[in-house]
């Protein structure tokens, strides 16, 4: 990704808007008794478009902002989301993305990873003596399914927004060969 001040401002706006929308909208709506978590999907899309460094830094920033606004110990959210962004970016750097299903599938898998990661961080901070309901598994799976559904529009939207900065954009329209009259 070619980072110009304009693109940097867009990335900051995307992260800010993503976190605010997550807290004010997605976390407070319920579909199938679970609220969608779009932040991992957003960070995965940024990682897929910008590479591992962009993904990691955006994930770290989104996590810090999330922790600040939820007034919880800093670092947990940033660690998990940074890992999501980095892994998505690494995937993009190692493999050629050809199928349109890659982005949503990766969003789903890394959302699952993020939810388990949040659980691991929580375990580290003292979840040990609590009873964990089996409904947690359902919640995590439904959140991952939401990420699959929302992953594609998020990826497409971000690709459109960040198109000037993308090094290679397979979606860029090919110039058609001019018609030569009388040939």
């Amino acid at each position: 990704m070619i980072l110009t001040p304009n693109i940097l401002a867009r990335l900051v706006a995307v992260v800010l808007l993503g976190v605010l929308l997550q807290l004010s909208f997605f976390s407070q709506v319920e579909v199938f008794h679970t609220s969608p978590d779009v932040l991992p999907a957003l960070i995965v899309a940024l990682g897929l478009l910008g590479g591992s460094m962009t993904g990691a830094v955006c994930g770290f920033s989104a996590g810090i902002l999330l922790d600040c606004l939820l007034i919880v110990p800093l670092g947990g959210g940033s660690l998990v989301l940074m890992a999501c962004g980095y892994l998505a970016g690494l995937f993009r750097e190692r493999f050629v993305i050809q199928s349109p299903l890659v982005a949503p599938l990766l969003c789903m898998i890394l959302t699952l990873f993020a939810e388990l990661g949040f659980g691991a961080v929580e375990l580290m901070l003292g979840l040990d003596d609590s009873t964990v309901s089996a409904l947690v598994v359902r919640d995590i799976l439904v959140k991952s399914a939401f990420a699959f559904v929302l992953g594609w529009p998020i990826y497409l939207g971000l690709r459109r927004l960040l198109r000037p900065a993308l090094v290679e954009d397979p979606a860029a329209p090919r110039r058609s060969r001019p018609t030569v009259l009388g040939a």
Partner: protein
Amino acid sequence: MYRKQVRRRRAVLALLVVGSFALLTITYGRGSDGFQRSVSAVFSPVQSVADRALKPARDLVNWFDDTFDARGQNEKLHTELETVRAQAVGAQAALAENAQLRELVGLDKSGAIPSGYDPVTARVIARSPIVWFSDVTIDAGSNDGIEVDDPVVNGDGLIGTIAAVTGGSARVTLISDHSSAVSAKVVPPGVQGMIKPSVGDPGDLILDFIDSTKRVGSGQSVVTAGWRTEELASRFPPNLPIGEITEASILEQEAQQQVHVRPFADLRDLDLVQVLTGGSRG
């Protein structure tokens, strides 16, 4: 050139990982630090505006979810659904808010809130998206007299306590959060125990450490115990409604000294809450 890039990438990644762990180590166990307070002060008004602006959209999505749920239930609900469909989403939101405020005033007047406490009404502006946490952020903070450990209620009963405060916002740890523990008693028998969550299921709480020689049964109410000794006192005032016992098998009572409780408050759908400020604590 490529190696240099890889080295730089690894260095940044290591820096971010170390930074995250350092932040966790420094900030864990502290309510809120200066950095969080500053960020929260900047974003609280934005969150508040976003929360109000997105409320109709949220209500619309939740309405679809409720409608979907109701379809799977019995015929009796169909008539109610027809009525609900006829109402505009905006009007529905206003009605719900009005009802919540009435319930809060009702709780206040019914004597459930003990004297000496000054209720501060606040709106939930954010909710943690992570399944392992049960936290919400409200739009009132230390500027409104809110302090850490203040109990938080809504029209149905106890919902949690204040875990961290900034000037204009506060984090409420719900009673369904893994870190929550509330000393409670069953009425009428007066059996005391500790209300603990079943992480991930906000509709199921566990009343633990109860006296196995005394029997409690389904349908009995659970309220805060609000104990007090010479030096210490519970952070909760006595007799705040918490929930009702749903499962109380003799086997579970004898073997594990616990019963299951369904909270009165719908912890998944919180909008307006009251923080009980100013109470005396040990």
